[in-house]
């Protein structure tokens, strides 16, 4: 074909049909969304210590209850819970909750079959929120994607394939700011890919729905879980991110 692609592209990009009508109220929706993000950041910063303590206590009680007999499907607790939780507890919670959680951890691991690590408030596998680029790369778990921006270097996990996507986002200034673990990973509360939305809301009743339909769970310290849902109202994406992230919208 003798067509000049350069000219064709310029013609296409100048086409009026590229215009999209702006929905009435669009500006308000954006301003409201921006305000919500800002308030969440501020509230989280102010209340983080308390929230962490409460979340840990609630988590301890909920999970502790699972030990008795029949854990519902999707609520198994993986063996590796102790380290991070206790570490977090040291910062914010009274010593009693440490006891609760350590007691719970030992016995609740029987049903677990998954080899994928848990996604916890601190991070996933060896990758922790806040780790610098160098620290994260030194774990050997990441493979850098060519795609990156000034604000966000993108990585995938070596051990898990991911289609056309990034699993870890690292800011040059704030370190690891976003982690999206592969299917199979679950939170300590048992939520992972495939969990029904109702289970997510049960596990994290304090969460809120954001403008994109994601269930956002404040974890304190400017951190949050996000859960995205597919058409069948089951989880298709789980994530942990810092409010500092500039990796996604």
């Amino acid at each position, binding site marked *: 074909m003798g067509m000049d692609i350069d000219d064709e592209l*310029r013609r296409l990009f100048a086409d009026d049909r590229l215009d999209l009508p*702006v929905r009435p109220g669009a500006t308000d929706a954006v301003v409201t969304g921006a305000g919500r993000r800002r308030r969440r950041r501020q509230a989280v910063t102010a209340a983080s210590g308390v929230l962490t303590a409460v979340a840990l206590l609630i988590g301890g009680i909920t999970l502790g209850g699972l030990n008795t007999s029949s854990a519902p499907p999707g609520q198994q607790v993986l063996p590796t819970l102790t380290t991070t939780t206790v570490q977090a507890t040291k910062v914010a919670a009274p010593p009693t909750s440490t006891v609760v959680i350590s007691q719970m951890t030992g016995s609740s691991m029987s049903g677990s079959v998954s080899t994928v690590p848990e996604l916890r408030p601190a991070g996933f596998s060896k990758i922790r929120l806040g780790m610098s680029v160098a620290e994260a790369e030194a774990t050997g778990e990441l493979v850098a994607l060519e795609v990156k921006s000034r604000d966000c270097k993108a990585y995938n996990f070596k051990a898990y394939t991911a289609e*056309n996507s990034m699993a870890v986002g690292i800011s040059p200034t704030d370190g690891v700011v976003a982690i999206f673990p592969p299917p199979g990973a679950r939170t300590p509360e048992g939520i992972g890919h495939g969990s029904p939305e109702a289970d997510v809301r049960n596990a994290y009743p304090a969460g809120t729905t954001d403008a*994109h339909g994601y269930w956002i769970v404040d974890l304190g310290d400017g951190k949050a879980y996000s859960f995205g*849902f597919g058409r069948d109202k089951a989880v298709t994406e789980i994530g942990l991110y810092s409010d500092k992230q500039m990796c996604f919208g």
Partner: protein
Amino acid sequence: MIMLAAAREVEGESAAMEEFADFVAGAMPGLLRYGHALTGNPHDAADLVQGVLEKIGSRWSAVVRKAGDPLAYTRRAMANAHVSRWRRTRRENLVADVPEAPADRVRYAFEDEPLWQALRALPPKQRAVVVLRYYEGLSEAEIAQTLGVSAGTVKSQASKAMATLRTRLGAPAEGR
């Protein structure tokens, strides 16, 4: 003292939000169009614009202070967000009036453009390079800087993209 400082901060925030709202109202049509070119479909365009603007709005004062030209900053952020995007799920759309019904889809005439179809089929990064070059009119060096990749990467992505477009347009019946 604390109360006064807090009140002043709130006042400053609300002035900043008014300024941000003006910016959004003015920039929205152009950003939606640009997002349409970047993402290849109206839904993702609206989604991209909303996500990036919300994020920028939540830090508006800092963006204005540091970025100088908020519009250029927003467009750069959109290109980056689009490329590093992994969220494929359809989300609630609050920004653009996107045709939903099948009847409307027929009137969405771009569906019929072979070049548009070929562009949509490109991987996000290649399409971003094409859009930055032919829509934004950026040089290779500027594209590299915008996307945070090397000039060599831009060159190779661009040549892959152009080769694919040529092949697709040369044989439009293929791969349909």
